[in-house]
């Protein structure tokens, strides 16, 4: 259930994204949106915001324990976990898409593509990356007595995603940066990165569900 604290996190994410875009634009209008998206928004803000939202939706517990209140009455833990992960992905996608679109609009400069196209592109990249992040954090939440593995996921994303080697292929950060115009991991094309993000969302989500008992 989304409680006021989660709404506060969402509002905070929008606020920080807006401030980042405006600050970049004031510094140098040319390419401000791209810098804000690659740097502050997707580089720092969204992973933390998505982790917080994932923790709110999945509860700060191990994933199979989160499913216990319904599973004890005969629901399959895997079905309940699938629903929770899908909700987490949906909420994350909405927040990331809106924050990315807001950054693109506020940081827009005349040399960039039309504002609507820029906002829309940023939004779908944000939604796709957020889905992959949500699934990655859900998989992490199956590790540890209280699902502390989700912090390990975040750490791996920062450490591996910052490299340009093969390891970067397995975390969402490098692909999101590639889609936003950053350095591609292993010279991967943008469509390939998009496909890998979608595959990650499915694979990590499926792995998280599979790690729950029936």
């Amino acid at each position: 259930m989304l409680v006021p604290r989660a709404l506060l996190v969402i509002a905070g994410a929008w606020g920080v994204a807006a401030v980042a875009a405006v600050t970049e634009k004031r510094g140098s209008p040319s390419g401000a949106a791209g810098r804000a998206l690659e740097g502050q928004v997707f580089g720092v803000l969204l992973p933390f915001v998505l982790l917080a939202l994932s923790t709110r939706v999945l509860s700060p517990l191990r994933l199979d324990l989160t499913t216990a209140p319904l599973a004890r009455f005969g629901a399959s833990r895997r079905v309940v976990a699938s629903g929770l992960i899908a909700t987490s992905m949906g909420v994350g996608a909405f927040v990331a898409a809106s924050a990315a679109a807001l950054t693109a609009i506020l940081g827009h400069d005349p040399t960039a593509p039309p504002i609507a196209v820029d906002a829309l592109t940023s939004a779908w990249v944000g939604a796709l990356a957020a889905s992959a992040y949500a699934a990655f954090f859900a998989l992490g939440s199956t590790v540890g007595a209280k699902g502390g593995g989700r912090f390990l996921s975040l750490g791996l994303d920062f450490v591996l995603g910052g490299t340009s080697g093969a390891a970067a292929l397995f975390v969402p950060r490098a692909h999101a940066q590639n889609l936003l115009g950053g350095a591609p991991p292993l010279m991967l094309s943008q469509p390939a990165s998009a496909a890998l993000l979608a595959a990650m969302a499915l694979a990590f989500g499926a792995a998280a569900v599979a790690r729950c008992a029936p």
Partner: protein
Amino acid sequence: MSLVSLARALPKRARIANLPPLDFSLEAGVHALVGTPDDGTLTIAKLVGGCEAPASGRVLVAGRDPARDPRLRARIGATLDVPCLPDAITVRALLEDVDLVRGATGTTDALKALRLEHWLDRNVASLSRWEKRALDLVLALSTIEPIAIALTEPGADVAPLDQQVLRDAFARCAEQGACVIIVTASMNSAIQLASTIHVFERGSIARSIPVDETGALVPGRGIELRVEVDLPRLLVAALADEPGVIGVDWDERRHRSMLSVRGDDLDRLALTLARAATESGASIRSIVPMAPHIDEVRAASSGLALAAYHAAYGAYGAHGPAPSVEKPADRGWQGGSRAARLSGWRAERVCAACSCRARSW
């Protein structure tokens, strides 16, 4: 095969909490497992209800693993020490969610049966811990075609419920072939709610006794009645010479109007009390039968086991054929208590002098 069977089932994080592996089997009926949290009682409902899988060992309900079988879980009712309820705004919405998961209605009727229908429109967040535990109990009792019901302390730390309705509900479940397990540290709760009492010690059942033979729990202790009376001094004086009374406890300073009266037979003791009250002119306000404390029961169990051990040890080392040592007359021994296990091990040793073998029960 037993309906509920735990074989060396070790709950998760049991080693950190120094909990023993659980090892017992139960058939259909209303069973009370009387033990303390150190004996692993708080993990029984979790394991039997399939809320968590054991770290090692095996838990079977009707031959299947509840932690891995959602259909089986739907037929098991369980209440934990901390209520584990689905998220919902109101009690009505919560009950509807549970009905939806079970694919049947019945939770609201169970709430009404316990005269709690006025909770339906209450906010779940506004319920106290006691009320949440009572709601959890209602949900467990509303299980459709139950196979097992495992309840953690249904008589303590819970909003007041009609005990007669609870007893009837348990009996109905047992008649349908379910194994109702009441896990409690209170002998009073066990006597009130169950039909068989099992003394639970370090994960195993040490003794089992039908509820109508609870006097055997502490042999020699007899029946104890706690009496509230307006003129206790006169009643004590009248009871002093009564042959049906074994003992009278009265603490004039701490509980002036309360006294405990012990005797061998409940009916005889009650009649004696009535006669003494009439003769002394004291008026009795309440009479409550007092169950022995769990520590008393354990002490008695250890004493009986020790007596058996000494009897066996007396034979051990003696030349010639070893005399047979009879099991104590007290019912329900399973040799599960620590002292009993110890005595069993010692008595099985072979005499070095003549190779005779002392037998133990």
